[in-house]
C-alpha cells in the first residue's frame, strides 16, 4: 500500500485535547484547547467537523464532494490532513 492509500483507509478523529466549535462573532470554526485557540479557514472547518473516528478518509472525500457538488478534492483533503496530523489536531 502506498502512503496515500493507507491514509485513505484510515479513520481519523479530532485529538482528545481539542474542542471544535462554531464561533458566531468570528464567523469561523475554531479549535479550543487549554488556554489557546486555532481559527480554521472554511475548508479546514468543513473537513474537521466531519471527522468521527469511524469514517474513512475515502468516505469523507465522497461526502465533501457530494455536499459541495464538486469533484477532485482528494489532493486538498490529503494535504490538509497531513498538516492537521503534524499540528496534533487529528489522530489517525
Amino acid at each position, binding site marked *: 500500500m502506498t502512503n496515500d492509500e493507507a491514509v485513505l483507509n484510515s479513520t481519523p478523529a479530532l485529538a482528545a485535547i481539542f474542542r471544535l466549535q462554531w*464561533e458566531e462573532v468570528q464567523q469561523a470554526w*475554531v479549535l*479550543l484547547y*487549554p*488556554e*489557546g*485557540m486555532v481559527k480554521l479557514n472554511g475548508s479546514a472547518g468543513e473537513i474537521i467537523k466531519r471527522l468521527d473516528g469511524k469514517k474513512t478518509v475515502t468516505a469523507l472525500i465522497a461526502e465533501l464532494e457530494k455536499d459541495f457538488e464538486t469533484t477532485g478534492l482528494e489532493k486538498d483533503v490529503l494535504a490538509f490532513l497531513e498538516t492537521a496530523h503534524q499540528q496534533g489536531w487529528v489522530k489517525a
Partner: protein
Amino acid sequence: MTPTVNGKEVTVGPPLWLLAEITYACPLHCVFCYNPVDYTQHGPELTTQEWLKVLRDARAAGSVQCGFSGGEPLVRDDLEELVAEAHKLGFYTNLLTSGIGFTAERAKALKDAGLDHVQLSFQDSTRELNDFLSHTKTFALKQKAAQLIQSNGWPMVLNCVIHRLNIDYIDKIIELAVDLGAEYLELANSQYYSWAQLNRDGLMPSREQLQRAERVTNEYREKLGDKLRIFFVVPDYYETRPKKCMNGWGNIFLTITPDGSALPCHTAKMIKHLEFPNVKNMSVKDIWYESEAFNHYRGDAWMKEPCQTCPEKEKDLGGCRCQALMLTGDAANADPVCDKSEHHQTVLDAVAYAQVPDAKRIEVKPLVFRDPINSRKLSSITEA
C-alpha cells in the same frame, strides 16, 4: 470594528481571551505575585450576579477562552456556579490555581460544571524552598491537587515560576512534573511587575544560571520527547528586543479585576493617567471598542521615537507599556528592554547586578512577601 484612535482608524477584533480575576484573596504570599502591590486598597469584589453578567456580556462580544484566576479563585465558593455558566455559554474554561482548596468534592463539582482545564502552579519542586517562597506549607497539598487533576481526566498543565532562588533546581522541577504525569510544563521566569518588581534584585537569575537551566531543559526535551512538552520563558531583561506584550494593547486580551475594573492586561492599572472602565457601569462591548483606556495604545499613532519610525514597530508594538512606565516614567516610551531605547542602560544595570553573587552584594534586601500587612504598608508609602 474600526474605532478611530488618535485620528486613525484601527481594526479591532473581539476580546478573545477573558481573564476573570475573581478575587485577590490568596492563602499564598508569593514574592513574584503580579497582583497590584496595593491590592488591599481596591474596591469590594463583584457579586455572583455581577460576574454572571460579565460572562454573558463577554461571550456575546466574542470572548471564547475564559480563565478563572486571582488571587486564588478557589477562595470564592461561587466558582462552580461561574464555571457552569461559562461552560453553558460556550467558553473554553480554564482554572488557574495554586491547588489550595482543591478538594476531591470541589474537583468533582467543577468537572460536573464543565470545567475544561486546570493549570496548577508550583513554586518549586523542593519542599523547603517551595514553602519558603510561598511562605506556607503547601507542597503536599499541591501533589494531591495534581492527582485530582489526573483522576478527573483534565489535561495536566503545570506552571512553575522560575527565578534566581529555584532555577538551579530545574532538573528536579522537570522530574517532579514527569512523576506527576504532566503533559505540559511551563517554566516561566518571573516577570518583574508588582511584587516581583519590588523583589527584582533577589529574583533575577544570573546569565550563567539561565544558560545552565536552558541546557538542562534541552537535555530533558531530547530525553522525554512527546511525553512532556516543556516551555521555557527567559526574563525579557536578557533580550535586546521587547516582547509583543499581550499580543498588543486591547487586541485579544481582557482582564476583569475583582472589583470589576476592565484592563488590557493584569498590571495595567499602574498607568494612573488612564481611567479604566468598570463593568458595573459600562458593557463589555463598549469597554472593548469605545473606551478611551482601551483605545489609548491601539495602532501606532501614540508611539514616540525610536518606535515611531522603527522598521520593527509592527513586530513588537514597542513592547510593554507597564514596563516602559516603571523604568522610564512614561508608558508611551519604547520598552527599555529594546537596545534602541535611550533608557536601555537601566535594563543593562539590572542585568549587571544579577551577575553579582549574593555573597558579594553589599546590601541584600530581604524579599517582600505578598500579604495584606505589606500591601497596606506599601500603599501608604505610595499615597504619601
